[in-house]
């Protein structure tokens, strides 16, 4: 593997700029003539706009202009769309309501953008925004999905009767009902998956720059996928044609899904720059982020799991209601359907599954993919259910899981997915050994002697990553293909630039991608640079989410490297008068196998560019590109074990041990992979123990709109984690990678909740398990 190649714990190339304050995030950008934008937002959850009076604001000091939604409509800027078509079980298409970048008729959630003020300074823009007078006619609002489905509930969109976006189903209900009727045991449970705010530490930001001389737009934006942003803003929002729009996502401070989507603000900043003739920069403050970043989760489910007399699962029936908020965000429709219900088989052999999903509008922020996106919801539902079943059946949770594991691959589940490979027992065994599961009763007794209630819980998760085979997702309604592109440019002196459509916002691509190249050609890591995040540099790409950068993005690089390697070998063979098939690449040299003939890498590169002596008919240069479309999803899986102590006096939970055993397939940089797992676990524990978006049901006001109200996990809430890997290489991509970005957030919430409910002896507990809720559950 070498000290810098595949498998090495290489310190990150990108770290120095971040550690010395030289990172370049969107809000750090300043361009000549730049002014500041501030959005006027609806203070009401639901209202019609009677009038907007901007005259006083326009007269305020420093104000360049104030722009509102009717002007944007008149200029032909399009409405925001959801890019994944879902059909209800009756065959009708989903009911997508109109989402204007600036609302001018109806506002549908607190934070809905109404106007933008552009001024010399942010302070002046903010002052003037307070002088914009919007006359609202306030309407009744609804925030909870089940309330929105009730007769007489406020209607969020005229074209979604009863607030129903779709009523979708997967599987066959008849055989599932029959299996449940014939079961020896049926476990029934209601599962609530709490609404979260993703909270990347860098708030969203956009800088729109219109160049009138060239009729050209540049957008700096906090995006996980700048090419998708350009595509959507061109093709659907009519901001500018693609060749007239450059989108740059420079250093981006975390995303976790929330920066996949194209939001109103980047569209409005570009349009406002054209209207005013000045570059316009907007940066969200944290309260704006809480109000308007797409939220995650918010599912309510009813579950029935049937078992035969041997405790084998015979059927699973799920009925889920998903709160979509006020508008359909870019990929929202896919989350509670193809990213969720297709994973309801978990690690288990389940003959028949039926899931019915109701997608519902409410007067809350839009909900879309957040770290894991659908898969955490499926895992939480299954693993709480399995734990409950084990308790009801009087079995050990490990034995019940183990006896239902899928052990033969490939395995076709009843919900579309074909699992290619895995070894679930290996991760379960590793996690139980690492956590000293057998020693738990003694630890519990010791804790009891100290007056603490100790509990242990596990979860066995699976996820589908490497998103995704284009034809497959196209047949399921996706509006885009989910391949990735790469270009490998070898310079004349042998240094290498890799252009990738993946985007790094913390994942360390500049290091891992370079490790792949360094391994292949035996060149120093420092001679490889990774270029990403700019539509003018990289031709096209689908970005980073769904743990796809390794499995899909790096596979595209590997494919381009194959082509570079083949050409370099041809040149070397020609120069050394050897057969091409005898050329091997070792330690930065192209050698003729079995001889002492060798050429350093840079000489072969130089020969490609001088072109003085190339094989007959060969084009000069050494640069190759590739598009890689995955053949299948990848299926990372693992087992997490959490051990807690609850203080019976206060209900406060302390995590005393957290063990993660994951199978991510092959690993390029174990240090970076472990970091991804740590961060994912913290977010999962955050969901289970601390976090929860709260709206006031009567007014639709967001109560948790700051870090003083929304409980982010902090260092003293969390333990250190024990992380290990079991490896079954992925057979469907050239590197054997499955992906590691989301596992932590998927596997940890049920492990935590199973531990807490074990400790207190009451399964009736919802996330977040705050001290107040845990204490109350102990009193039942």
């Amino acid at each position: 593997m070498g000290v810098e190649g595949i498998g090495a714990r290489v310190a990150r190339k990108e770290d120095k700029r971040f550690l010395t304050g030289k990172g370049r995030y969107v809000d750090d950008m300043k361009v000549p003539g730049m002014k500041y934008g501030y959005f006027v937002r609806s203070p009401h959850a639901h209202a019609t706009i009677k009038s907007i009076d901007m005259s006083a604001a326009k007269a305020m000091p420093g104000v360049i202009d104030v722009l509102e939604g009717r002007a944007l409509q008149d200029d032909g800027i399009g409405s925001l769309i959801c890019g994944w078509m879902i059909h209800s079980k009756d065959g009708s298409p989903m009911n997508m309501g109109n989402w204007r970048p600036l609302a001018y008729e109806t506002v549908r959630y607190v934070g809905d953008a109404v106007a933008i003020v552009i001024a010399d300074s942010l302070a002046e823009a903010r002052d003037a925004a307070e002088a914009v007078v919007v006359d609202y006619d306030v309407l009744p609002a609804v925030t909870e999905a089940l309330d929105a489905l009730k007769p007489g509930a406020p209607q969020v969109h005229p074209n979604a009767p009863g607030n129903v976006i779709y009523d979708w189903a997967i599987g066959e209900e008849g055989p599932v009902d029959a299996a449940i009727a014939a079961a020896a045991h049926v476990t029934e449970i209601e599962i609530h998956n709490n609404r979260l705010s993703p909270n990347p530490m860098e708030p969203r930001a956009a800088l729109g720059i219109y160049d009138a001389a060239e009729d050209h737009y540049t957008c700096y934006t906090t995006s996980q996928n700048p090419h998708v942003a350009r595509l959507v803003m061109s093709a659907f929002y009519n901001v500018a044609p693609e060749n007239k729009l450059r989108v740059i996502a420079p250093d981006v401070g975390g995303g976790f899904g929330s920066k996949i989507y194209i939001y109103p603000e980047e569209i409005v900043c570009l349009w406002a720059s054209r209207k005013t003739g000045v570059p316009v920069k907007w940066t969200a403050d944290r309260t704006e982020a809480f109000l308007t970043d797409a939220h995650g989760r918010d599912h309510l489910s009813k579950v029935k799991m049937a078992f035969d007399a041997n405790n084998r699962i015979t059927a699973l029936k799920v009925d889920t209601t998903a709160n979509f908020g006020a508008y359909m965000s870019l990929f929202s429709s896919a989350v509670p359907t193809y990213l969720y219900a297709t994973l309801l088989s978990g690690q288990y052999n389940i003959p028949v599954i039926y899931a019915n999903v109701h997608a519902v509008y409410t007067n809350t922020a839009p909900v879309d993919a957040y770290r894991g996106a659908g898969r955490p919801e499926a895992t939480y539902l299954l693993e709480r259910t399995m734990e409950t079943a084990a308790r009801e059946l009087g079995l050990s949770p490990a034995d019940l899981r183990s006896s239902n594991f899928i052990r033969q691959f490939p395995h076709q589940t009843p919900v579309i997915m074909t699992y290619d490979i895995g070894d679930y027992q290996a991760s379960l065994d590793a996690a139980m050994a690492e956590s000293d599961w057998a020693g738990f009763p003694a630890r519990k007794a010791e804790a009891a002697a100290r007056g603490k209630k100790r509990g242990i819980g596990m979860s066995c998760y699976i996820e589908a990553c490497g998103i995704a085979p284009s034809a497959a997702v196209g047949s399921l309604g996706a509006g885009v293909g989910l391949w990735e592109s790469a270009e490998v440019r070898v310079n004349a002196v042998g240094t290498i630039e890799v252009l990738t459509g993946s985007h790094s916002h913390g994942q360390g691509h500049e290091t891992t991608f370079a490790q792949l190249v360094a391994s292949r050609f035996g060149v120093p890591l420092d001679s490889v640079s990774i270029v990403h995040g700019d539509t003018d540099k990289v031709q096209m790409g689908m970005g980073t989410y769904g743990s796809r950068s390794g499995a899909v993005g790096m596979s595209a690089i590997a494919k381009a490297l194959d082509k570079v390697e083949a050409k370099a070998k041809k040149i070397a063979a020609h120069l050394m008068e050897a057969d091409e098939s005898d050329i091997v690449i070792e330690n930065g040299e192209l050698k003729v196998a079995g001889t002492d003939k060798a050429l350093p890498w840079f000489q072969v590169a130089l020969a490609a560019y001088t072109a003085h002596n190339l094989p007959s008919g060969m084009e000069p240069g050494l640069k190759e590109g590739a598009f890689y479309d995955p053949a299948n999803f990848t299926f990372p899986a693992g087992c997490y074990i959490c051990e807690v102590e609850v203080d019976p006096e206060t209900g406060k939970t302390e995590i005393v041990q957290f063990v993660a055993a994951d199978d991510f397939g092959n690993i390029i940089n174990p240090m970076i992979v472990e970091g991804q797992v740590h961060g994912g676990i913290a977010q999962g524990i955050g969901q289970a123990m601390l976090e929860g978006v709260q709206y006031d049901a009567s007014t639709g006001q967001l109560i948790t709109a700051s870090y003083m109200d929304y409980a982010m996990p902090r260092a003293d809430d969390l333990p250190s984690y024990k992380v290990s890997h079991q490896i079954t290489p992925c057979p469907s991509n050239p590197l054997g990678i499955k992906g590691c970005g989301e596992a932590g957030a998927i596997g940890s919430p049920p492990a935590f909740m199973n531990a807490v409910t074990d400790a207190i002896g009451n399964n009736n507990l919802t996330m977040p398990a705050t001290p107040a809720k845990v204490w109350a559950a102990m009193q039942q």
Partner: protein
Amino acid sequence: MTKVTLTVNGRKVSGECEDRTLLVNFIRENLGLTGTHVGCDTSQCGACVIHMDGHSVKSCTILAVQASGSDITTIEGLSSGDALHPVQAAFKEHHGLQCGFCTPGMVMTAADMIKRHNCSLDEKTVRSELEGNICRCTGYHNIVKSILAAADEMGGAKQAAE
């Protein structure tokens, strides 16, 4: 507008700003030192931590005019030349950062924490001291590891010097 004069990273600087301007905005906008970040509006996240007269301070909790006359170190001035400060080096070695946005505040907090505790820290103390710095990427595991390693390194160096 009021004139503010500071010593920042060893250099005397001055500029005009409104009285309501926060120190963090003065550092970012007037001085162009964008390594100090803004991650919240309620002095919770710690992305804006700097050193003011030798102590770590959230630069969003103080007005620029209040800070006038003080000696400020920002992340850009923590190390000199090409070498990293031991805390920066430990964060790199132990993967104590991912997206990098909270990192300047974490590093400045850590440097002050190590100094105040005379290089003698344990995990519980580090976690407790980090209560005012939020990271969403790392789960804190490697940040804690980095700070403990830096404290050891700096303690060792100090002992050797004595």
